[in-house]
């Protein structure tokens, strides 16, 4: 009970940092320091953060691989964009009320699609689910691509009102904060523990009475909802929504952010979404003309090296001695604290086995351990008495 009342800084640090960033950038913006490119960059970063954190919910916490996140975003962008286009011609104009209504409608539309795709997720596992989500994304894309000019614009896309660029990124940051509040509260509640228990062992979770169906649908819907919001934000940051953007390559790009950030780490997702978006935009603006072709080579090499550094079993020792944490503690000349190993990997999804296959021996040996540990005190008691 004591723990509950205790204010834990680590649970609020990301709100504080993002809130601080919001305030700093807002001030910079109104003092005229922020230029066009910084505003656009910040818009993109907030969209990327929302996408990465919401996908992280499915991949990192529920432990299902989804390659259709761009599809949900597409639905949000088109439905929200359509609503905002309709509203802007009404008395509401293109201001904040329009944006809020569009965001809610777009998010809900995407969430409904999320439930629809969550249903097969109840039957499918692992890579089979991955391909179904990928297929879903591509179907959504094709449908919007072949829509009529009047409904969703067809190949040239849907014309949507662009929100004032002086304010949009601030709204983006606020939305990031709102999303963090919702997602982190769910993760840290009993629902969050239920979700991670489904990831670790669905059968065990079911056996303990967790409603697996409900939680899976909840996670898919929630993740899709925020992807939809990111889509609406996208529609407000562009003059036109074009569905060719939302193909599986884009879903994979979001997945890359989640994986590089670390499975089941919200802060990791935020960090990697920020860095990757920043890297891509900077590469595109530095490598112009003949050098443009080097962008992807550079990006690919960074990707491969980071993943190998982060994950290669052979580099484990190296990783422990050469990482950001030790770098920083050296930098600040702090003593190296011993980190409780149970804390480090608390929210990490394990993908080193196929989720469809339950490792028999592991389960059995675990049981044995449990009985041993429960036996021990009895023995001790027996010995003392």
């Amino acid at each position, binding site marked *: 009970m004591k723990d509950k009342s205790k204010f834990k*800084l*680590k649970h609020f*640090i*990301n709100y504080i*940092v993002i809130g*601080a*960033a919001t305030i*700093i*950038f807002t001030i*910079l913006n109104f003092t005229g320091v*922020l*230029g*066009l*490119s*910084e*505003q*656009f*960059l*910040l818009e*993109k*970063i907030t969209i990327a953060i929302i996408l990465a954190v919401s996908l992280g919910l499915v991949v990192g916490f529920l432990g299902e691989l989804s390659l259709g996140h761009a599809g949900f975003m597409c639905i949000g962008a088109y439905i929200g964009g359509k609503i905002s286009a309709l509203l802007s011609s009404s008395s509401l104009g293109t201001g904040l009320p329009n944006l809020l209504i569009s965001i809610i409608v777009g998010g809900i539309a995407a969430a409904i699609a999320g439930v629809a795709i969550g249903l097969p997720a109840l039957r499918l596992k692992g890579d089979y689910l991955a391909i179904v989500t990928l297929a879903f994304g591509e179907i959504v894309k*094709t449908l919007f*691509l*072949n829509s009529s000019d009047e409904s969703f614009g*067809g*190949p*040239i*896309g849907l014309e949507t009102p662009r929100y004032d660029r002086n304010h949009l990124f601030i709204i983006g940051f606020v939305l990031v904060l709102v999303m963090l509040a919702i997602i982190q509260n769910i993760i840290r509640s009993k629902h969050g523990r239920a979700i991670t228990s489904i990831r670790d062992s669905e059968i065990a979770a079911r056996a303990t009475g967790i409603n697996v169906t409900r939680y899976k649908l909840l996670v898919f819907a929630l993740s899709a909802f925020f992807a939809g919001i990111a889509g609406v934000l*996208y529609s407000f*940051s*562009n*003059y*036109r929504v*074009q569905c*060719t*953007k939302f193909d599986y390559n884009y879903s994979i790009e979001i997945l890359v952010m989640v994986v590089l950030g670390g499975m089941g*780490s919200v*802060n990791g997702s*935020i*960090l990697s979404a*920020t*860095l990757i978006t*920043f890297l891509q*935009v*900077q590469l*595109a*603006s530095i490598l*112009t*003309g*003949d050098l*443009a*072709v080097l*962008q992807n080579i550079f990006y690919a090499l960074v990707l491969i090296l980071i993943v190998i550094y982060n994950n290669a079993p052979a580099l484990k020792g190296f990783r422990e001695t050469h990482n*950001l*944490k030790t770098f*920083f*503690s050296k930098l600040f000349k702090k003593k190296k*604290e011993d*980190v409780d190993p149970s804390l*480090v990997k608390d929210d990490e999804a394990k993908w080193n086995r196929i989720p469809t296959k339950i490792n028999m021996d592991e389960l059995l040996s675990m049981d044995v351990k449990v009985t041993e540990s429960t036996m021990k005190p009895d023995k001790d008691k027996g010995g003392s008495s």
Partner: protein
Amino acid sequence: MKKWFTKVAMAVAVTLTAVFAAFLVGCQNKNKNEFVIGVSGPLTGPAAVYGLAVKNSAQMAVDEINEAGGLGGYKFKFVAVDDKHDASTVSTNYATLVKEGMQVSLGCVTTKPGLEFKSLSKEDNVFFMTPSATADNIPEFANGYQMCFADTKQGTYSANYVNDNVTTSNNKIGVLYRAGDDYSQGIYNNFKNQLAPKFTLVEASFTDDNPTDLSSQVELLKDCEFIFLPIYYTPASVFMLQAKDKVSADCVYFGCDGLDGIESSEGFDINSIPQEVSYLSHFNSNATEGAAKTYIDKYVAKYGKDTLNQFGASAYDCVYAIYNAMKAAYDKDNSKVTPNTSASDMCEVLKTEFQGGFSYSGVTGTNITWDRDGYVNKAAVKYVVKAKSN
């Protein structure tokens, strides 16, 4: 505790440094001594061949202008950024160009990003003349101009040509278009509307930008004696190869400017196609005389035959048309056209020129003028790439 903190601290540190670094870079070019022309186009990815053609040609034109002394003693600088044929990159690309000091632009190479560009450039009133973004609403605002034909025009020209010149024994006209592609579908829709009612349209479509199997489409179109191909030359060549033994050798393949480049593709032998291949365009990469020939020779010598197509020719003309207009304005009042003129002022100057009886003759046409909406007026010529083999 520390793990969280380091990660978040890093994030903030990196973002802040990034933004400030970007800000510092942005402050540099205040007093410039060169004119800056910018373009955003696909320099990587599936559409890269078009973006590269534009980049190379525009660079070539700028180099020539600089060698000839520039304008009023000032040189020109050309900046091309990569948009990967993706509209979502346009906002940051546009910002990059603005930061580079862009005064005049060639807009975007392709339509999809171009639609984003036209609205962004309207905010700052930046003049652009796109070499190859063909959608009808690209020149929607006063600051936008096209050097290429708009989709509607191409569809109408083609339909008129068919209505006036084509007779087929079964009155069938075949069309192969790419569904979901703005260019192809835009032309096709107009063609369909303008086609004389005596013809029955046989349609077939594909969806990939680089299709490999067009056998069903060939089956659908094999009875046609005239097939309209409002598509780019790569899929068209695939179609021709897969259809050459099935479609009658008397058939005529007729396309739009996208078909240009088909005969110069490395390794593709147009003479192995028995049917007639022709297209309606403003440029022919096999031209043997005139300005086109000079351009082709220069381009091939510098960049090879690989990326030679009408996109580049059009971009070359764009740069020269803009240069000529700037020069004309400079001759009238040399204080209005300097490297320190703002993009918006430059736009007004250029608009006045282009609306004031300006005409330009270059690679893609002679006496080219622009109407009030920014659409180009020039002749579309039918080029026969290859006559029917016997």
